[in-house]
């Protein structure tokens, strides 16, 4: 018989796969690598579910594994591509510039942005994933917004 954790992990996968994939893709930089990272993360979660101590939500524990796997799957090529710039004439900030601005953020600010906007996690949940207090998440996101604003303004000039 499967344990409750196994059932919960499967439910998380089925209900939130698209969000896990999106965050993983933002971190890894490539769709296929992100998909592999999410698959591998859930394999690890299922194998090591007995090590989950239950001192926080299971979802936070799974998110941590997904984030770590996505970082592991992040290729040097995708990181290099994130720092390249593109030029458009329609007034929008080019994707390449946005990537570069995001890539220039400190890693924890970048992860907080991904978890906030791609996973729709609240501050408490982001704190669980990044292993920081809720107030720290608030400060990190505030700083990230400031950095992004400045970066995007510079890119738009």
């Amino acid at each position, binding site marked *: 018989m499967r344990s409750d954790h196994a059932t919960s992990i499967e439910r998380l*996968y089925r209900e939130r*796969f*698209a969000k896990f994939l*999106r965050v993983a893709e933002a971190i890894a930089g490539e769709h296929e690598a992100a998909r592999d990272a999410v698959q591998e993360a*859930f394999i690890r979660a*299922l194998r090591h579910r007995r090590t989950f101590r239950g001192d926080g939500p299971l979802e936070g524990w799974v998110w941590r594994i997904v984030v770590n796997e996505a970082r592991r799957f992040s290729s040097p090529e995708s990181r290099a591509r994130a720092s390249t710039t593109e030029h458009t004439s329609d007034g929008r900030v080019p994707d390449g510039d*946005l990537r570069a601005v995001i890539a220039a953020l400190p890693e924890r600010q970048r992860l907080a942005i991904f978890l906030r*906007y791609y996973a729709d996690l609240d501050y408490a949940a982001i704190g669980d994933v990044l292993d920081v207090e809720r107030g720290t998440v608030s400060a990190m996101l505030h700083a990230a*917004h400031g950095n992004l604003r400045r970066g995007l303004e510079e890119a738009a000039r």
Partner: protein
Amino acid sequence: MSEMDTNLRAYLDDLVPLRSDSGDWSAVDRVVRVTRRRRRLAAIVALAAALGALVATPAFGVRGALLHLLGADRFPRPADVEGEPVATGPHIILATGRMGEQQWKLVANESDQGLCVHLELIAPQRARSGGCGTTLSKQGVGLFTSSLASGATWIFGPVSRRATTVEIRLADGRSVPARIVAGRGFGTNFYLAMRTMPITLTAVVARGATGSVVGRQDVD
């Protein structure tokens, strides 16, 4: 939601769009199950190997205990006399019989000095002769004899499993065939010949299926 939030969300949506991908849970489940099965199999193989080593090594005594449970002779006590072989496996009765009134049995066991083989006279006379640590590997055949006062003689010993015939050569030029006895797990077979008259041996010769000599012991 602030303007920054709205703009940023729009930018981020463009950068990594939300995909309608529901994943493949069966692939995750399959990998975990296969790994679990492999781990179980590896554990079973390791356990079997450990048990095999326990049973195969006479010093652990497990093999003896199992054979004892299956009806083999009990272990003898450790030798009381210093230097005497100490049995590390059970005494296995290879053959029994009667020559006239005399009952006998051919017995083998592993010891700390190598393979032991003895002919035991049970009744009416009681005696035991044979030895341990025979040089079977070098000569392909070992040689022991046991005699009664009447002159009745048993010639016996271990012999290579490649041997299909064993011939006892006598000083008067004759030769007599010996019976080959299965080794019952000793890694070697045994042979046994009986004569009711006193004899003088010159050699024991074991031959394989093609007639080639696979073991020979000369008596000087």
